[in-house]
């Protein structure tokens, strides 16, 4: 299976462990990721806030490049890139006037004919659990995981068109397929503070703090995420949250692809598990998944 891969800016910046593990997992599952060398930023939340046409155009530029190839499916690990690419694709398909204005701005033809997947959806639905189960060498038995989806991958449902927006299960299923002990909780799709990370840090400390408190109470060894913004907020702010709540949190925040890779037999350092602020290695060692 060959798909177009849109890593997005964070995955070549602070979220490199996500990129590394995505590439490894897809290779293991027989998926060929074709990355366009020419991709540019989708504009993320700042473009979406500041200018609607700019936001559509920045995503459309990338879609137009992919439309020129023979590939029909695009996979985006970043849930915000997913949201923006998918919205632009749908909007251009259904709004001729927007399509005309977008084409004028990007100076290229665009049809809106691609299928845009978020990485979790692609792995759970397009690849399925069977191939994953058959590749597991080291089942993650005894590892207690809190599955955290965040917002953009499922909300709003009319845009994301994936899983249940309030109580999704796909990440739970993928983690269970690896043999992990998946814990239930109520905050699967509650917001971590997202793009307010720098400008309103206190808000992030409050929102991510709620998530950590609940995850700790449930007895999580780790929180599994599908979004690099969730990862950054929960990992980077954990010290501040600990001070604020006067309670010591040390819950590693890992990408789901890192755990798939670990179960497939890769070492933690090959998956960038040594690159997080809250080090996952002690708990992995304690549970026997790392020497």
């Amino acid at each position, binding site marked *: 299976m060959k798909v177009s891969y849109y890593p997005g*800016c964070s995955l070549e910046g602070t979220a*490199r*462990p996500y990129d590394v593990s995505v590439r490894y997992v897809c290779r293991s599952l027989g998926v060929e990721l074709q990355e366009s060398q020419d991709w540019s*930023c989708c504009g993320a939340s700042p473009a979406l806030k500041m200018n*609607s046409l700019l*936001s559509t155009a920045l995503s459309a*530029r990338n879609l137009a490049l992919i439309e020129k190839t023979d590939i029909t499916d695009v996979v985006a690990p970043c849930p915000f890139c997913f949201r923006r690419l998918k919205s632009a694709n749908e909007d251009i398909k259904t709004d001729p006037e927007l399509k005309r204005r977008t084409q004028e701005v990007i100076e290229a033809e665009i049809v809106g004919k691609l299928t845009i997947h978020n990485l979790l959806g692609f792995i759970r639905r397009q690849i399925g659990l069977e191939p994953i189960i058959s590749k597991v060498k080291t089942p993650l038995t005894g590892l207690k995981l809190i599955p955290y989806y965040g917002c953009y991958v499922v909300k709003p449902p009319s845009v994301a068109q994936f899983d249940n927006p309030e109580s999704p299960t796909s990440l739970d299923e993928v983690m269970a397929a690896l043999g992990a002990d998946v814990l239930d909780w109520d905050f699967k799709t*509650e*917001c971590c503070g997202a793009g307010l990370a*720098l400008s309103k840090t206190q808000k992030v400390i409050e929102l991510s703090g709620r998530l950590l408190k609940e995850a700790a109470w449930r007895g999580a060894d780790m929180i599994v995420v599908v979004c690099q913004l969730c990862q950054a907020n929960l990992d980077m702010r954990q010290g501040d949250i600990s001070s604020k709540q006067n309670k010591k949190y040390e819950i590693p925040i890992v990408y789901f692809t890192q755990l798939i890779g670990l179960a497939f037999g890769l070492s933690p350092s090959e998956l960038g598990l040594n690159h997080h602020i809250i080090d996952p290695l002690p708990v992995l060692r304690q549970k026997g998944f790392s020497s």
Partner: protein
Amino acid sequence: MFRFTGDASEKNFLRQVIDKSGQNLLECLQCGKCSGSCPVASENVPGPRQLVAEILSGLKDEALSNPLWWYCVSCGTCMTRCPVEINMYEVATALCEIAQKEGVQPSEPDIHLFEEIFLKSVEKYGRVKELRTVATYNFRTRHFLKDMDKGIILMRKGAISPFELLKGWKKDPRVSRIFEKVRKGGQGE
């Protein structure tokens, strides 16, 4: 209870927001599910219900200076729960566009500054250079040492490299051109 005075500007503003956002705010039931769900609403930041009420009532100045749409992270929770499926982040974009056009000062300068610095990077290089964006933001807000501790931990672990800040990147004129064209012709309807 607010009542329309009949001034045309009240209706114009509502019409403008509806047209720009594509969201039929007239369907709003004022049920308040959105405000109960909104992660960024607080004692200082009104929830979406109040913002929609302001727009419906023609309270243009109040709506354009409402901090909510700056805070909005477009999580989509309000729309998920809204009985008439109003997409508030599209409303936020519409208000931001109107506020910029009319020269309204951002009620949340920090959020505005971050978004500007972020987009500058996209405009120049075609992609966001994260570390430089963070450093520029902290420099401009004079919080020079903010998050330095985390940066040092990540550098020690080899997760990020300080050279990232120093090295030059290729500019991408094709993306700059999109910004230019949007500025020139694409503004407004």
